[in-house]
């Protein structure tokens, strides 16, 4: 990748492993909700809230696509970018993951508002996913801030890869 900029060790040691773990957890939740949606199975739900109501709502779809599937796509994309940033020490891949986390967090805030103020029901899986994506955005923001010189192209190191 041309113009690739090396990440500082701090981002690689702390932010990326944490972000990878969060993406993996989010992928698990979103995959479960997607499978349940297409299999028309009831959701294994704790006594808190009403997962069935939230996930069967018209707000649980965008057109014909379940929101859970969008979640899988977003989490897997972030996981791939984070893994790429980690392995290649590439600041731009970290920045791309941050961009997806930004959009996902904004959409999560909207969905949480719908749960609380329109459906009057909470889905524990959705709350868990919203918390994960918010944490992911915070961690990636910290990573991007830590690597701001590299992200802005002013960093000392410009490599052809590896590091």
């Amino acid at each position, binding site marked *: 990748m041309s113009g690739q900029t090396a990440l500082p060790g701090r981002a690689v040691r702390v932010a990326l492993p944490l972000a990878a773990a969060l993406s993996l957890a989010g992928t698990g939740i979103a995959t479960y909700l997607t499978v349940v949606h297409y299999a028309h199975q009831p959701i294994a739900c704790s006594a808190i809230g009403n997962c069935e*109501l939230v996930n069967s*709502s*018209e707000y649980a779809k965008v*057109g014909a696509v379940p929101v859970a599937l969008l979640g899988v796509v977003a989490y897997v994309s972030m996981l791939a970018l984070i893994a790429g940033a980690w392995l290649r020490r590439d600041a731009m891949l970290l920045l791309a993951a941050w961009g997806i986390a930004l*959009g996902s967090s904004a959409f999560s805030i909207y969905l949480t508002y719908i749960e609380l103020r329109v459906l009057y029901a909470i889905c524990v899986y959705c709350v868990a996913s919203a918390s994960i994506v918010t944490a992911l955005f915070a961690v990636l923001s910290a990573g991007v801030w830590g690597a701001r010189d590299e992200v802005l192209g002013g960093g000392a190191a410009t490599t052809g890869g590896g590091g």
Partner: protein
Amino acid sequence: MSGSRKQGQRSAAPARGARRGRRAAIAAMVIVAAAVVASLIALQAFSGSSAKVPPRVVTGEGRVLGDAKAPVTIIEYADFQCPVCKRAETDLLPSVEKDYVQTGKAKIEFRMFPIIGRESWDAAQAAEAARDQGKFWQYHDALFNAQGRENSGAFSYDELVALAKQVGLDVPKFEQTLSSNVHLAEIQREVDAASKEGVNSTPTFFIGTKMIVGVQPYSEFRAAIDAALAKPQ
């Protein structure tokens, strides 16, 4: 000295250009993220089921559909705003109606379980006002056919009145019943009783002693109804 400064300025210029480029790329990324989220929300605003409840093959009395003397009673707890309840009405119950209600083996009793907020309660009260005029099932079908996104105004006062006109109710009488909240306490009692029976989501069905939650395959309903029919009355 001045030569080295000039050299420094020459090397700083491309670095500043690169920095500006990266900043523009970040700004573009934020704009794209905002545009994607806005598009998702806008797309969602236009999503919704356009399926319709098929025409009835049997008539109902009050909230009971079919022959009141039918040996098996299928109790359905539902919310007019609940999309899965609508799916039950469009995809599942027509088969039950044709195979069991029309043949006099079973009857369906509708019970209110409004759980999705204000418009669920308003729709439930409107359905009761229609029942007062002997047109519960016509209004019930009209409500499910008019279902929109939850609490979005699909069951606003005006829409409920428009549906009353559509099914041929005495509108002033309907409005009077609806505004007086005369059925509110009755619906609340029904919800409380259902909660005690273990109902906590919609739709929930009781066929004899069997409880079925959600829209399960028709084979499961058939098995439950056949089992109830096989039991000595």
